[in-house]
């Protein structure tokens, strides 16, 4: 397992990482490079990559446990069981055609949102806070339902990602029909 924290600095996820005391790599992606490369628009997102470096199962929402099951309605067991079957028995979840069919690929507008986010991040790192704010806001306008951009920039913008600005974003997302990943059918063995 490789975990990637889409956090502005190591200190934000540090308490969680240290509590977990992982033996796997826990990486920090403050500039959202992995989000851009893999078209990740919310967390948690899981991607299965095989021994040849090929995507075996594309972006999906999956939780490691049922702690927040009441909030999001997802059971963690089906994905974990499918994962075990893949790792222990080599059971492929999907063929390549299915993987491609299930991928959600980025649009030009989403990529422009990512570019505005990158610009905002550079300006922020160089102390040009007001300018950075403008571009974080612009990025959010271009990708209004991308949680990594809009919610992910709230800590940097001095906003509470659990507070009213997030509540507003969440409402818009719900009203837009909860645009998100399609769920990947999991074979129940």
């Amino acid at each position: 397992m490789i975990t990637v924290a889409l956090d502005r600095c190591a200190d934000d996820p540090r308490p969680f990482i240290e509590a977990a005391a992982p033996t796997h790599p826990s990486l920090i992606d403050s500039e959202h490079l992995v989000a851009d490369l893999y078209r990740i628009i919310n967390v948690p997102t899981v991607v299965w990559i095989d021994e040849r470096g090929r995507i075996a199962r594309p972006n999906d929402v999956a939780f490691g446990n049922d702690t927040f099951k009441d909030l999001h309605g997802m059971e963690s067991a089906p994905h974990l069981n499918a994962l075990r079957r893949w790792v222990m028995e080599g059971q492929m979840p999907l063929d390549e055609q299915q993987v491609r069919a299930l991928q959600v690929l980025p649009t030009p507008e989403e990529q422009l949102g990512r570019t505005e986010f990158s610009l905002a991040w550079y300006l922020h790192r160089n102390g040009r806070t007001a300018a950075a704010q403008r571009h974080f806001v612009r990025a959010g306008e271009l990708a209004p339902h991308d949680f990594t951009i809009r919610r992910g920039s709230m800590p940097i913008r001095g906003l509470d990602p659990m507070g009213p600005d997030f509540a507003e974003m969440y409402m818009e997302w719900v009203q837009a029909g909860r645009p998100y990943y399609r769920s990947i059918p999991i074979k129940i063995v």
Partner: protein
Amino acid sequence: MANETFTLIDDGRICETGATVSGDRVYLTPAALQAALGWELKPQGFCKDDRCVLVHDRAAVCNDPGVDLAGFAAVLSRPLAIDLEERVACLGTSAADRSTQLASLDAPDFTLPDLNGTMQALSDYRGKKVLLVAYASW
């Protein structure tokens, strides 16, 4: 004659270049464009390494006082974010390039630091099954 120093961010690479700012447009001379971004203006269009992109309306992109940065980005279909006041521009990756990579099913490689600052790459784990988990404290 360039009247400004502009910071260009290209795929994470940062460089300073001379540019002319006129209204809301940013212009680089062909020489500055090549030095900063590696793209050379040739008769057929913009070329880099073994790739060339045709320019259909040359006059719209390349004119006095130079290559229009926004026009250049549009020819490459790459997203461009500019802050004129701060004199910084960021050239991102096109949706087409990202999509082609993802559709190939080759997992894009990346190198990131862990909590200790040690850089690790996805490709370090080639030969193993990898579960990539993106999460956040927010």
